[in-house]
């Protein structure tokens, strides 16, 4: 569940703009999600192997080249699916919350 969340968040992060791993970590931290930085890397590699993400090497002004990740068409489709199920879930929770009050 939590990891599913993290996948959803990564796809959301990448939908507008490509990013490299450290950038994602910072944005996830800013959104108060990530706990352990290392959890991101296995996830990224797995999503890349599943064809949801692609990456390219890009030179940076400082230090070694960076791995920029981007969404593939399959990743974009998967993001839509996730968004639907998330909205459904969120509706359910909201509705239940209201009836409880």
């Amino acid at each position: 569940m939590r990891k599913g969340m993290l996948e959803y968040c990564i796809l959301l992060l990448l939908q507008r703009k490509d990013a490299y791993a450290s950038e994602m970590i910072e944005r996830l931290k800013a959104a108060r999600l990530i706990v352990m930085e290392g959890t991101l890397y296995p996830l990224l590699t797995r999503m890349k192997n599943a064809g949801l993400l692609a990456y390219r090497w890009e030179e940076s002004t400082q230090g070694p080249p960076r791995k920029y990740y981007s969404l593939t068409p399959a990743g974009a489709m998967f993001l839509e699916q996730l968004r639907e199920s998330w909205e459904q879930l969120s509706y359910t929770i909201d509705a239940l919350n209201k009836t409880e009050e």
Partner: protein
Amino acid sequence: MKKSFPANINGTVYYIDEDAYQLLDRYLKELHHTFTGETGAEIVADIESRISEHFDEKGSPVVVMADVERIISVIGRPEQLGEEADDEPSASFNSFSEPTPPPPPYVEAEPASAKRHLYRDPQDAIFAGVFAGLSYYLGWNVTAMRILYVVLTLCTYFWPLVCLYFVSWMLIPPARTPRQILEMKGEPVNLDTIGQTLVNGVKTHVTSGATVFFRSLGRIVVALIGGLAAIGVFGFAVLLLLVLVSLVLALCGVTSSLLTAFSMGGDDVSVGGMFFLLSVAIAALIPLVGLTYGGCMALFNSPAPSRTTVITLIVIEVIAITAAIVLFASTLFPSPFIASLVFGPAVTNMC
């Protein structure tokens, strides 16, 4: 004052303290252990580049222990990350729309590797550390077990238990890495304990007086056994060689005496006979070399041969003995087929 040296991490050079380097090295090795295969290598490379970014953010080119500890706690310990990697990809999230059985009630996970593994302990070893390792595994006192073993060995006419020891030596792997040492002792494997093992293992490993005493005693015993066995095997091999050579010569109808057969070299001895002598020589030589080397190991602390070497030698030994027996048997009971197969046409005519 600490020793520090340059290390290349992801293409950038940092000056890193020795202890910090060791911890980092262990950490990366543990990560490699957790993430295996091509995918794993990629993950570890990514994490390594993240580590170098953390070093860059620090501003100073010198990396100390505290930096490494902080980075490891931020990135996560291998066993924490490993759990993530083991799960099925995105199964959890897809299952929103489909009814799935409820997850099992949450239970406090047991410490990942609190259960003990059987290893040999070379650090506290007398010969190979079989008993030191067993004492961790069973939780018994190692000195008591050793005394019991010596008594039992003497009670059972020596060889059975000695052979048992050698077999255990072959079968039980040694605990060399900190992870293995922790698994041997039944302590949870995480970076804190690994770090401690490193520090303790390198700097403050104390060998108890009893172990030192047994170790010296053990060396003497091994040297004596090795020497005696070497002499015995050598004598036996020479004897065997002489008997068998004369038998082969007699069976092949060579009438000349043993002495002339030796002085005349291989001329009178058939091809099969040569092979036979060769296999006997190999079969006799291997234990001889092995025992001599064992004696040297015990006396002069020579490094132990690798298990691969030992196993290869044993295999060759078995082949040589088998060959010798087959060749000998085919001389004793000459069937035309085997004889022509083994000895060639020349001998078939002679026999």
